[in-house]
């Protein structure tokens, strides 16, 4: 057993710490999440045209997401393990349903209408895929043998391909990386990782063959945004102007001229980082990245402290996928990655991704706060 850190001692002895501990909430993670949510409201107010309604709607979503997080933090980790297979299978069935309904409806479909509210199965699968892979690998001695690796890869490929077919390349990438992260943490040989990496690079032309026209256009635009300045390249050009013009100190809160004058598209959703960078400059950007780093570090720490293989693998994957999220969005906005529809986690306007992310953090908190109550 690891000895308690000073922080955990404090957590155990202070009154507030005791209260949160009973809530199964991890204080450092919780505090950073609250901080970043406040930051999100501040920037949304500016990016959304100073519309209080936008803020209220988003606050409601965040509150709901935090509620779900605390709820999941109460569930004991072995329960997640027990439900892994069922939840994963359910997710696959729902993805198939979406695909079939989409076929009937002729066109891209990501939603499943369930009575009054809409449900996006691809969001659920973002969490259940690493759960499934972790469940499967935890049964065996690690690192995984080729046969297990093959089965695990198939389990990752299934939801990835189903989502890619929707077509939602961004989410498919995130799901694939969440599964790959589990394999990485399970101790997959470095040589193997390098080998697969080069193989995938070599396969890019084949992938290109299977891409939709608009997806190809996005990649081409990324490689040369100036080629289509009226259409697809427009986003990247305008976003770079917004960020670059922010400079070191930024133009100040509500000082963004690019989003104000409607130059920057999707300024409160996928491209919100550009507004942030314009208003708060390099200092703001670095601060935001540090905040993200704190969250990721805490999550990786929680993973390292986890007692059983399943919890470790799942926690590690959730932590790393969160980073992929951040990296893909910011990379796209600052023009180092192609434009795929991935929001800036916890900051972009919109409900679905926040709920999924907070569910992930809830699982992490559960893993961290239950192990002391129930020794391995």
């Amino acid at each position, binding site marked *: 057993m690891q000895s308690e850190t000073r922080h955990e001692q404090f957590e155990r002895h202070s009154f507030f710490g005791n209260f949160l501990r009973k809530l199964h909430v991890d204080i450092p993670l919780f505090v950073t999440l609250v901080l970043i949510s406040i930051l999100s409201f501040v920037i949304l107010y500016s990016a959304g045209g100073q519309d209080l309604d936008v803020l209220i709607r988003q606050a409601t979503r965040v509150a709901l997401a935090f509620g779900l997080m605390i709820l999941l933090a109460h569930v004991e980790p072995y329960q997640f393990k027990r439900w892994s297979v069922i939840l994963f299978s359910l997710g696959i069935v729902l993805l198939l349903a979406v695909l079939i309904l989409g076929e009937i409806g002729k066109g891209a479909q990501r939603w499943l209408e369930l009575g009054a509210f809409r449900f996006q199965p691809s969001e659920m699968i973002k969490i259940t895929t690493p759960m499934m892979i972790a469940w499967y690998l935890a049964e065996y001695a*690690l690192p995984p043998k080729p046969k297990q690796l093959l089965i695990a890869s198939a389990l990752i490929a299934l939801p990835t391909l189903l989502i890619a077919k929707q077509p939602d390349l961004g989410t498919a990438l995130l799901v694939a990386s969440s599964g790959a992260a589990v394999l990485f943490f399970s101790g997959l040989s470095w040589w193997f990782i390098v080998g697969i990496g080069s193989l995938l690079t070599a396969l890019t032309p084949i992938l290109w063959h299977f891409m939709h026209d608009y997806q190809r256009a996005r990649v081409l635009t990324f490689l040369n945004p100036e080629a289509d300045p009226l259409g697809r390249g427009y986003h990247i050009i305008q976003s770079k102007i917004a960020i670059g*013009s*922010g400079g070191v100190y930024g133009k100040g809160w509500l000082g963004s001229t*690019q989003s104000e004058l409607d130059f920057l598209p999707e300024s409160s959703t996928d491209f919100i980082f550009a507004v942030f960078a314009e208003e708060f400059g390099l200092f703001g950007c670095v601060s935001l990245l540090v905040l993200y780093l704190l969250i990721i*570090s805490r999550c*990786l720490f929680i993973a390292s402290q986890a007692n059983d293989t399943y919890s470790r693998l799942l926690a590690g994957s959730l932590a790393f996928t969160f980073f992929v999220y951040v990296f893909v969005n910011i990379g796209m906005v600052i023009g180092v990655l192609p434009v795929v529809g991935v929001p800036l986690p916890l900051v972009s306007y919109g409900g679905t991704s926040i709920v999924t992310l907070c569910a992930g953090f809830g699982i992490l908190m559960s893993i961290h706060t239950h192990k002391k109550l129930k020794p391995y």
Partner: protein
Amino acid sequence: MPRIYTLKNNSVENQVFVNRIIAAFCIVVFLTIGLVVRLVYLQIVGHEHYATLAKENSVKIQPLVPTRGMIYDRNGKILAENTQSFSLELIPEQISDLDTTLTQLQQLLNIPNEKIDQFQKQRKRQKRFISTPLLLSMTDEEIAKFAVVRPYFTGVDIQSRLVRHYPYTDLAAHVVGYVSRINEAEMKTLPMSEYRGSSHVGKLGIESFYETQLHGKTGYAEIETNVQSRAINTFNTVPPAVGANLYLTIDIDLQKTAYDALEGYNGAVVALDVQTGGVLVFSSRPGFDPNPFVIGIDYDAYQALQSSENQPLYNRALRGLYPPGSTMKPFVALAGLEYNAISFEQTHYCPGYYQLPNVPHKYRDWKHGGHGAVSMSEAITESCDVYFYSLASVLGIDNMHQFLQQFGFGEKSGIDLVGEKMGLLPSREWKQQQKNQTWYPGETLITGIGQGYLQVTPVQLARATATLANGGKIVTPFLVDKIVTATETQSGSETHGKIIPLKSINVQHITDAMVNVVHDAHGTAKNIGKNITYHIAGKTGTAQVFNIKQEAKYNENTIDFKLRDHALFIAFAPAENPKIAIAVVVENGGHGGSVAAPIAGKVIEQYLESLNAK
């Protein structure tokens, strides 16, 4: 060396895992540093550059709208052009209080509310610095009125724009179609980058079908502007590529002849080049003037068009569904010969009615008292119904369906226009599926004379006639002959379909009979056969609009106009070496021979003359 796979070594696994966590953390930090480096590059190194670009939004990407391609007829006469017109345009970015400005302009120039709404919709779609038209095609008076107050309106100006104009108005409206303002639904489907500066899009006809080619490719210019948004410098210009010019197969003079000949009636005329399928005439009367749709038709005028009893917006040639009546007889007769159901010379006695065995119902002939003993030639010439009741009964619906389908009945002709109707060629399966009923023998009889469920469009009828004239070579009607861009000339959509295997002697028999329709003393269209130097092969048709009671007699003069029979005529000429195939439908025209055939006669005459003149 054998190793134990099943046991987990927890301490080793733990060590590996912790190592991986550390590795993951390093990757995260490394990639984050990468992001920071890029940010430093953008925000410190590139700051000055980007700040200049962002400053007062000094650099704007201005779309350069391509000029829309022209549309010509086969002889180079202009069917659609772009004319200079003056429009009142606003640049929203330069107007401090847009609502007040709009109200003032509305009062000054008496602008209807719909135009304000249209303007608002278009404005929301575009960048704030793009000049957006409020009034198109301003009159001299409007221009003068505004010129006086112009200094008081910053951001409002008179611009000259190219506006689509259709010189032949209602004559070609159903072929050429029109362009109109982009609506909200189209905004979602049109490619944004191509239409960023465009206000209009093809809605109907050729304008819609060939939208991509006619529109051209949008160019752009990066324009540097000062604080007052006046352009001070332009760089990086990519010129637009003008839209392609289209040359149609239509002969607009011939179209005019057909349209004028239809005067007083609603109806359609479609004429095809027999060899290629190129459409020479595509006329639907009444037409409408497409020009008001371009500048924004006002509500009342649109309502008037919509609710007009004659339905001018309805493309009868493309979408009108009519019972073909006796024009179907040559095809049924050919089926009879091809399937060896009857010989050309064999006669059938016509007492004026036909009865199925053991059924009291009398299927009447149009001629009271009957035609007597008739051969196939006479049956076609005089359009004897009883002969065809009998033939249909021998052939059966399955054979008729199979044979007529080959001529394109019951399917789209494939003409390059949107919204074509399929028509209806009934069959046993169709009736079972659609009505859940079995096929009755009586229905076979009336199908044999082109009545019953059978429905055809004029363009289908023309196509089938051309196919017959070709001896079975199927043609696909097409309207665009040439697509001409600055760099190349593409030929249009001429396609060659398959060939129906027909015995040439049978086709010759049918042709001869159809020549008799026009040139024989007993022919139902003999009035157009006089004083011409060539032979026309034709067939009249009279399609019942409603059923007459068993013993009642149809009297054209006592019957309500709207319930009068439709008059039809199909023909090709010259019979020996066909150049033109034509189908005429005259709604409520009465007899095919007296009303529809003369229209076809005029068109054929003029076309053959024009060919001789060349």
